[in-house]
């Protein structure tokens, strides 16, 4: 097949994938402008309360004017925005209902999260009945198995594994699609223009690709750099894209993907696996036969082994904590308006939010850079060549 056709079909497939996903998501949008019953039950009230905590001054003003005085729980609001969800909240009472996928001991269950009606309804699945429940003190909503009377069945719940496409996963998939479209587009640009100067998006991202190559991969990995370039580039742009999407306060963004410990764990584990799969004899000898007197071995070998794990662990925590902290900071500043119940506070907190957001833009890049460069450093440690006796420390 000639390369033109291949390129064209690849592009076509990509675009159809984008349209498919968009269609799927939008099809699930329930324009749920229905009346909510404020006094049904505690769970519903809790959900309702968090629903009403939309970060717009207008809503706060309305609530104030109509005299609906609810106790404003700042930490709950913040934690809810940081945590994952089964709905992707758009505005007001409009959300995208994301698909719920459950693995139970009786088989898979697929249904829309709209069936829960923001926690108001119990969904009768083919195996069990489900309900979204928030435990007191916890911010994340969990899908629990309930019996006919509405009581939670903890033993059955324990057997259910939630593989739902949550807000974070949907955002993650969106970032994956964006990255594919952007970089395959750029790659096609190179195919079209050959070695000519890049144009458009390529001219903007090429220096960053070169930055990853010349300032991250090459200085650390030396001549082996080319082998690890795909991983380093992917991890860099994946983290950066998700960091930046997380800073966008409305629909396509707003999820806290890189501020989620599961995602950072996956990335850290990837670095851990790549590092240790490429470990040379010298690298492992540093772990199991360190250059210390033999009687120190029982002390040092465990330390070295723990050291293998602390490095990716630090990667995981650093990214998670930095991004989450940024989100908490922005949300706290917004919440000041609601704590003081005065729109005047916005005059102070909005400029602060803008200021912090600009800093977070920088942090988004820096954290992607740090994760990538530390991954490169750890891999380079594993690639260590034997050096001469006497150089050991």
């Amino acid at each position: 097949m000639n390369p033109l056709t291949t390129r064209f079909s690849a592009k076509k497939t990509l675009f159809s994938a984008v349209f498919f996903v968009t269609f799927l998501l939008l099809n699930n949008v329930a324009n749920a402008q229905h009346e909510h019953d404020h006094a049904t039950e505690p769970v519903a009230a809790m959900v309702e309360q968090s629903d009403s905590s939309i970060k717009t001054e207008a809503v706060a003003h309305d609530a104030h004017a109509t005299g609906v005085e609810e106790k404003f729980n700042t930490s709950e609001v913040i934690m809810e925005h940081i945590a994952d969800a089964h709905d992707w909240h758009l505005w007001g009472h409009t959300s995208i209902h994301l698909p719920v996928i459950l693995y139970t001991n009786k088989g898979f269950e697929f249904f829309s999260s709209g069936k829960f009606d923001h926690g108001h309804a119990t969904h009768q699945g083919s195996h069990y009945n489900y309900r979204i429940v928030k435990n007191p003190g916890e911010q994340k909503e969990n899908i629990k198995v309930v019996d006919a009377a509405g009581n939670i069945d903890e033993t059955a719940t324990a057997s259910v594994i939630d593989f739902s496409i949550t807000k974070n996963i949907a955002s993650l998939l969106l970032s994956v699609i964006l990255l594919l479209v952007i970089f395959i587009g750029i790659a096609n640009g190179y195919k079209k223009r050959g070695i000519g100067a890049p144009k458009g998006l390529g001219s903007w991202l090429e220096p960053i690709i070169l930055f990853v190559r010349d300032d991250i991969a090459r200085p650390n990995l030396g001549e082996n750099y080319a082998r690890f370039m795909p991983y380093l580039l992917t991890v860099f742009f994946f983290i950066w894209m998700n960091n930046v999407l997380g800073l966008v306060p409305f629909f396509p963004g707003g999820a806290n993907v890189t501020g989620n410990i599961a995602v950072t764990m996956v990335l850290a584990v990837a670095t851990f696996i790549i590092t240790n799969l490429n470990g040379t004899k010298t690298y492992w000898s540093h772990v199991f036969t360190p250059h210390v007197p033999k009687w120190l071995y029982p002390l040092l070998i465990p330390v070295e082994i723990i050291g293998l794990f602390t490095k990716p662990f630090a990667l995981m925590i650093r990214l998670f904590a930095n991004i989450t902290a940024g989100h908490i900071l922005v949300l706290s500043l917004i919440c000041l308006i609601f704590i003081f119940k005065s729109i005047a506070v916005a005059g102070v907190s909005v400029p602060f939010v803008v200021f912090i957001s600009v800093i977070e833009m920088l942090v988004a890049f820096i954290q992607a850079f740090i994760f990538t460069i530390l991954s490169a450093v750890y891999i380079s440690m594993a690639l260590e060549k034997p050096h001469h006796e006497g150089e050991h420390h």
Partner: protein
Amino acid sequence: MELVTPSIGLVVWSTLSFLILMFLLTKFAWKPITAALKEREESIEGALKQAEAAREQMQLLKNDNERLLNEARAERDRLLKEASEMKDQILAKAKNDAKSEGDKMIAAAKDAIEREKLNAMNELKSQVAILSIDMAEKVLRKQLADRGQQEAFVNENLKSISLN
């Protein structure tokens, strides 16, 4: 703390999407991009090297030209010098030739003049002698017209002649 408790679903989905992303990007983006970047760098490096080589070549050519030009100039100077020398020689030779020819002609003319002069002198001398003899004859004829005088003269001459 559920904030730091990774959920299985998220772990599975993010692993899956990250692996797929990495696979697709590696195949369709990173490889072509890094290859293109490398190719461009190599082509720039090659172009620079070529430019350097061309510059050196130019320098060599320039040196060569300079050398050739200098040689040509020297040759021209030599030729001019030779020509001028030859001219001088020819002129000198022509002058000498002319001079010797002139001298010869002058000498021949002088000889001819001398000869003519001698001839004229001889002729003059013979004329003068003839005239003198004629004159003397006329004088003698006049003086010795009577007998007495002839005898006196002969006697006188006889006296001076001593017959020994």
